[in-house]
C-alpha cells in the first residue's frame, strides 16, 4: 500500500484545483467526488494541499529520527 494524500470529503467544495495541478494523475473527479488513486508516481510534491482553498487535501509527513544514515 502506497501512502497517498488524503481528501476530507466534507471540506471539499469540488473546485477541482487539486485535480488540475496533480502531475501524476493520482487525483481524479469520479461521479462528483474527488478520488485519490494509489500510485508510486506520486512524489509527495504537496501542491494539491497548497492549492486547496478549503484545507480538504492533506499531505502529512511522518517525522522520524534516524541518525544512522
Amino acid at each position, binding site marked *: 500500500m502506497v*501512502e497517498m494524500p488524503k481528501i476530507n470529503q466534507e471540506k471539499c467544495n469540488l*473546485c477541482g*484545483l487539486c*485535480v*488540475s*495541478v*496533480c*502531475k501524476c494523475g493520482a487525483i481524479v473527479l469520479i461521479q462528483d467526488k474527488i478520488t485519490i488513486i494509489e500510485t508510486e508516481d506520486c*512524489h*509527495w510534491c*504537496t*501542491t494539491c*494541499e*497548497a*492549492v486547496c*482553498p478549503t*484545507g480538504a487535501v*492533506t*499531505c*502529512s*509527513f*511522518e*517525522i*522520524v*529520527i*534516524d*541518525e544512522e*544514515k
Partner: protein
Amino acid sequence: MTIDAAFLKSIPYFSVMSPAELDANKQLFTEKTVQRGEVILMEGELSDTLYFVAAGAVKVFKTSAQGKEQILSIARPGEALNDIPVFDGKPNPVNAQALGPVTLYSLKKEKLQAIMQQYPQVALNTSKVLAERMRQLVTLVEDLSFRHVLGRVTKILLNHSSDGAGANDHLTQQEMAAMAGTAREVVARSLKTLEEQGFIRIDRHRIVITNKKSLEEIVAESG
C-alpha cells in the same frame, strides 16, 4: 471563447458591479489558456494588461541569483496576478507559472481605468485588494527575515519526532504553519533550509531527522 459575467462577479475588484453592468462590460476582457508549467509573467517585464485567474492555480514566486525559489502566494480563481506593475507602470516584481492547465481573463490597463472611472466603487475595492496583499507580504517579510520562525519549525519537528517505536505523529505543512504561527510558504522554506544544511532528509512522506543535536542547537539559539 465566452467571458463568464457571473464569474467576473466573483473577482473582488468587480464584486460591487451588478450582473447587468458586468454583462455590458464583459467584452472588454479576453480569455487566454496556458498549459501546466508555462511561465505567465516574468520578473522585470512591463505589464500593460492585468491578468485574473479564471480557472486553475498559479504559483507567484521570486527566484534568487543562486536559483533559490521563494513562493509568495498561490493565486486561485478570482485573483489578479500582476496588479502591482499594472498600477505603478514599473517592471513586474514577480514570476508567475501555471501549476496545471490555467484559464486567464485579461483586461488592458486603459480599459480597467475606464471601468474605474465609470464605477468608482471598483477603485475602492481595488484599494482593499491591494491592502490585503500588502498585509500578506509584510507578514511574509517578517517571517522570512527573522530566525525565530526556523527555530519554531525546528522545535515542532523535534517535539513530534519519534525513533520508530510506537505510533508516530503525522503533520502537514499547513498544520506546522498553524503551530508556528506562520505561512505554509515559510514552513516549506524552513524545511528546505534544514535539508540543505544536512540536518534532515525529506523522504517522500517522511521527514527524517539525521542530526538531532544540530536541530536542538537551532532551537536553543532561537529561544
